[in-house]
């Protein structure tokens, strides 16, 4: 870019025939070099790259440390009050005038010293204290000037429970059937190690009973009820058919009730067994030591972070990631895993692809291969392109109005009349969400496919026709295979767009909690009418709808990281597939 001024100066001065001499200036202007344009364009690109990189770094940085076990601190305030927990965040603030004067003398003195040292600002920290069942709060702000001492007790443990959030405390006793069997932290820990595995297995069994067995019983009962309702709809309440069906239904109802009682009994047994083992921890509340009792069966994970080596911390970290990826959410989504959301997102994207790719490719084939170029084709093409610019919430409204309320309601009338007024398909569900997104991404596929078809050289088509091939044979054997990499590109773009879309899903079937996956062991295995969880919607829910928003905050980033990773993985897979196809058409083996 930098031209050499010496060479310019040394260039011979040309003399035109008419005696006019072209003057060559010693230095050309900056403008002529074009450097301002270079800076402008390069700067714009750089800024764009910087913002993208910044976004990725922020999400990755915040998301990656969520699960790293931090140290537990015990803070003693000047007032004598103590609290135990994890410091989540520190910040500086400017106190209101007069606020310092209202403090107790020793605190006020400390605050004034700090104000002087830090140009009128005070520090404070946010401590996650947990023990919501005792304290009524998850987090507490503590100003630095209140702090008299800060220690890291070796035996401070963090207990993640299935309910009430986390418990922070120092183990004091292990009780079996109400009797204390261990009294030192070491001994308690020993007992915990010994018995927790079995307790966890019992909890898993209980969950299996609750969601599996009871689900099946309810399903059977519902089927029986629907059968009876059908008879009622068809023949009326006073018919012979009803008279025959009713006792059968009552019988089935009785059988279901018995099965239910059996399962309930087993659950109670497990609960009783689990309630036998308890850990008691010392925690602090309002300046006093308060015992917190945790049932062994409720413990998801417990460890003493201050005693852990790096490798052991890594173990906790990995186990938390595993839980995040493979388990169901707990505690209003702010703890536990996002497996249902991952699964829902994947199923939805898959169904969307299955619909939009064939549909879009056929439409593009008609536009490019069959339709005669002319006004109508151009108009259709413009309309398709404009469809890509329609706000996605509009598609959501359309999906709700058309798929759920018109098509879905008609399906219910025809096939699921017995269940009315409860909607089956006449409500949001994974099928309608997929179809709505298919509609949303249709222009992407059509445009990409059309471009791919246009890029197939005409000489190939002519060669095929010259061999006596018909139009469809030419399209199927020559044009489509050759255009396949381009079609894959369209699919990639559609997937990336569809997997990350949230707004329309809120209308057509994404749910905050959807305990039943759209795919399970109950006939007919695929349940396209079910509501589903979606990662994008999950992020929104965590970030804005959570009661414990402070605890949900890191999860927002972790889930975002996961969503980005999934979309990237889908894209990489499709890109790999496309590269393979491309190689196939250029050199490689068949």
């Amino acid at each position, binding site marked *: 870019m930098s031209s050499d001024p010496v060479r310019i100066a040394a260039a011979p001065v040309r003399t035109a025939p008419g005696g006019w001499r072209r003057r060559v200036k010693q230095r050309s202007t900056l403008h002529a070099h074009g450097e301002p344009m270079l800076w402008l364009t390069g700067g714009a690109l750089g800024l764009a790259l910087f913002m993208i990189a910044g976004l990725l770094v922020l999400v990755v940085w915040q998301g990656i440390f969520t699960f790293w076990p931090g140290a537990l601190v015990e803070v003693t305030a000047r007032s004598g009050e103590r609290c135990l927990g994890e410091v989540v965040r520190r910040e500086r603030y400017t106190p209101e005038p007069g606020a310092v004067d209202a403090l107790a003398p020793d605190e006020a003195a400390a605050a004034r010293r700090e104000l002087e040292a830090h140009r009128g600002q005070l520090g404070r920290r946010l401590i996650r204290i947990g023990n919501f069942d005792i304290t009524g709060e998850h987090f507490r702000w503590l100003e630095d000037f209140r702090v008299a001492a800060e220690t890291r007790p070796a035996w401070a443990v963090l207990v993640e429970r299935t309910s009430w959030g986390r418990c922070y405390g120092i183990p004091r006793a292990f009780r079996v059937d109400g009797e204390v069997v261990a009294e030192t932290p070491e001994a308690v820990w020993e007992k915990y190690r010994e018995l927790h595995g079995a307790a966890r297995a019992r909890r898993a069994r209980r969950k299996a009973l609750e969601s599996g067995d009871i689900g099946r019983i309810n399903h059977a009962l519902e089927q029986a009820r629907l059968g009876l309702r059908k008879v009622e709809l068809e023949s009326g309440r006073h018919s012979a058919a009803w008279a025959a069906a009713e006792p059968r239904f009552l019988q089935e109802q009785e059988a279901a009730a018995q099965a239910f009682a059996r399962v309930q009994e087993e659950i109670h047994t497990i609960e009783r067994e689990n309630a036998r083992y308890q850990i008691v921890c010392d925690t602090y509340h309002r300046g006093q030591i308060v015992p917190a009792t945790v049932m062994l069966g409720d413990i998801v994970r417990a460890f003493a972070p201050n005693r852990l080596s790096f490798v052991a911390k890594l173990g906790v970290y990995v186990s938390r990631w595993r839980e995040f990826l493979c388990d169901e959410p707990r505690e209003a989504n702010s703890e536990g895993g996002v497996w249902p959301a991952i699964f829902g997102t994947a199923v939805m994207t898959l169904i969307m692809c299955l619909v939009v790719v064939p549909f879009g490719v056929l439409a593009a084939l008609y536009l490019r291969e069959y339709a005669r170029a002319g006004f109508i084709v151009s108009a259709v093409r413009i309309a398709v392109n404009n469809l890509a610019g329609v706000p996605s919430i509009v598609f959501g409204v359309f999906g709700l109005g058309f798929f759920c309320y018109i098509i879905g309601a008609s399906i219910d009338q025809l096939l699921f009349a017995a269940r009315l007024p409860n909607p089956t398909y006449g409500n949001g569900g994974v099928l309608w969400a997929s179809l709505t997104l298919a509609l949303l991404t249709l222009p992407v596929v059509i445009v990409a496919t059309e471009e791919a078809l246009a890029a197939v050289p005409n000489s190939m088509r002519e060669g095929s026709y010259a*061999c006596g091939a018909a139009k469809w044979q030419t399209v199927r054997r020559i044009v489509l295979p050759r255009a396949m990499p381009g079609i894959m590109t369209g699919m990639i773009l559609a997937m990336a767009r569809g997997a990350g879309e949230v707004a329309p899903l809120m209308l057509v079937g994404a749910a905050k909690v959807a305990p039943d996956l759209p795919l399970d062991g109950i006939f007919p295995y695929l349940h396209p009418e079910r509501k589903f969880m979606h990662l994008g919607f999950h992020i929104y829910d965590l970030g804005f709808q959570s009661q414990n928003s402070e605890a949900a905050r890191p999860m927002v980033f972790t889930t975002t990281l996961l969503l980005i990773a999934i979309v990237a993985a889908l894209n990489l897979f499709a890109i790999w597939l496309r590269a393979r196809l491309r190689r196939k058409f250029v050199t490689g083996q068949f």
Partner: protein
Amino acid sequence: MTTASEPMADAPREPARRHATPRPAPALRGDRLAAIARGEAVPTETHRELAGERAILEVDGFNLWYGTKQALHDIHLDVPFGKVTALVGPSGCGKSTLLRSVNRLNDLLDTVRITGDMRLDGASIYHPSVDVIQLRKRMGMVFQKPNPFPMSIYENVVYSLRIDGVRDRRVLDEVCERSLQAAAFWDEAKDRLKESALGLSGGQQQRLCIARAIAAEPDVLLMDEPCSALDPIATGKIEDLIDALKGEYTVLIVTHNMQQASRTSDYTAFMYLGRLVEYGPTEAIFTRPHLAETNDYITGRFG
């Protein structure tokens, strides 16, 4: 697309003067090309020797328009069976158009209209009842630029059988080998039949296209400047190949390489601005053409 039955108001309807054209009157000499350029109808000088040949393809008063522009004017041309016939002439004179009209590839263009007819073995090509797909199966075509399909060498060769639904592996293998051998490509290709055809060199691709064109044993092989995109060595191989095909296949080849026409063809037709000017045995056209204009073109004095 108009059909043969539709009369054209502005189509010049010269009486066909074939086979028995006397030597041109001296007045016409030297003026023919100028007359053609003025748009006048000029009769084709067809040599007497052609009368003795059995014509497999007869072009009879054929006119073709691209939109409003007429590209072929009243062509009368009989292609003899089992011989190689070359079409020569300056670029843009309508050689490719004529060739693509024979297998009705021009049907694919919306703007094309034609009048007149062609006959393959006595049966009309342009009659409305003709099944174009069946018609094309009786002809093979080799294009100016090699256009192998995006599939393996093997699948390229047996393409026309595949679209006919032939599944029998033995038949396909046999046709593949026979066609590749006829196209002088078997020795190079036999170990890489499963490889993509797009990885071949230009000359190899063109021989593959020839193998593909003759796989279905066509009545007529149409070649549109098959060597123009190739280097001299590849060109030599293709020319040898055309020589070898002679007798077995009827070949209609477009070329604007005079040596190639004189080396490979039995008959040569000279076209100019959409009209057929002179048509006769290659040897006669190149050594003692009836028309001075042909001589000028052959010897490179214009065009």
